[in-house]
């Protein structure tokens, strides 16, 4: 018996067709975006290389940056004070320019659990944490998080006691928000790097908490 006998298809048949991104339908909005991009370059607002560099830079932004900042704040009260006052300034301190949109930190406490949503679109601190997860942009998350936050959090595996206030932040305007999770128990003496590993993307949005495993 050959090792390939359990193959679900015969070798006489071609593999199923996997379309390239470009094989999807071209929508009017895609055409418009392309036209605007070409016009901006043609008119010298920016060059193609500048646009490429900006995309490349955006792709270096990731939740781990937020994790480093939270861990540093857990260990250093002066840095925490700066983080709570001005996230953009606190990110510059660790060498990250988060851009011009002001980001605010909202701190979880034993009495208050914060969770962030943008009901109108998908506002997110992209300049710091990169692109939001797909579910953050879904209509279900955006609509349900404001009216049944506890149920949504339960679906993410986070059940909060009634004594803890659930505070939902609708990021509708010129601010972006990052949740500062509570430092997990059992992390006494941990290094900044070890602490940073407990901070997940989802804990920075508030659908989860910082964890040691």
């Amino acid at each position, binding site marked *: 018996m050959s090792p390939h006998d359990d193959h679900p298809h015969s070798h006489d048949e071609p593999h199923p067709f996997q379309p390239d991104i470009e094989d999807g339908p071209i929508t009017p909005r895609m055409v418009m975006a392309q036209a605007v991009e070409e016009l901006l370059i043609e008119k010298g607002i920016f060059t193609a290389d500048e646009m490429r560099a900006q995309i490349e830079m955006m792709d270096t932004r990731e939740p781990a940056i937020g994790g480093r900042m939270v861990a540093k704040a857990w260990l250093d009260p002066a840095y925490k004070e700066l983080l709570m006052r001005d996230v953009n300034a606190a990110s510059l301190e660790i060498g990250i320019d988060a851009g011009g949109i002001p980001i605010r930190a909202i701190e979880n406490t034993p009495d208050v659990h914060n969770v962030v949503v943008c009901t109108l679109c998908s506002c997110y601190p992209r300049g710091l944490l990169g692109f939001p997860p797909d579910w953050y942009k879904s209509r279900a998350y955006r609509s349900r998080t*404001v*009216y049944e*936050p506890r149920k949504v959090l339960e679906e993410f595996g986070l059940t909060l006691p009634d004594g803890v206030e659930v505070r939902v932040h609708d990021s*509708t305007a*010129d601010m972006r928000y990052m949740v500062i999770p509570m430092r997990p128990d059992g992390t006494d003496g941990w290094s900044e790097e070890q602490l940073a590993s407990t901070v997940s993307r989802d804990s920075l949005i508030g659908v989860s908490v910082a964890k040691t495993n």
Partner: protein
Amino acid sequence: MNTPRFAPGDVVSVRADHPPGHVRTPYFIRGREGVVQSVLGAFENPEELAYGRRNGEEKPLYRVTFTQADVWPRYDGPANDTLVVDIYEHWLEPRS
């Protein structure tokens, strides 16, 4: 400059209007009462910016806290759960 009309602690109500166009005040808090939590500064009005209109005018922006049970009559969580929304001044009125 725009001196903010409201201060933290003020009880405000959100205008119950439904104008067409690009509006940044969510539907579900229009006509609801909340409490100003903080004043965030002044920003250009996105309802104008969305149409390319830049007249340099800035609107004070506030964080307003609502009690979930006031926003959703059928809210089934604890009474102290809250919702915080960023709202521009022209959408707010003093409590009537």
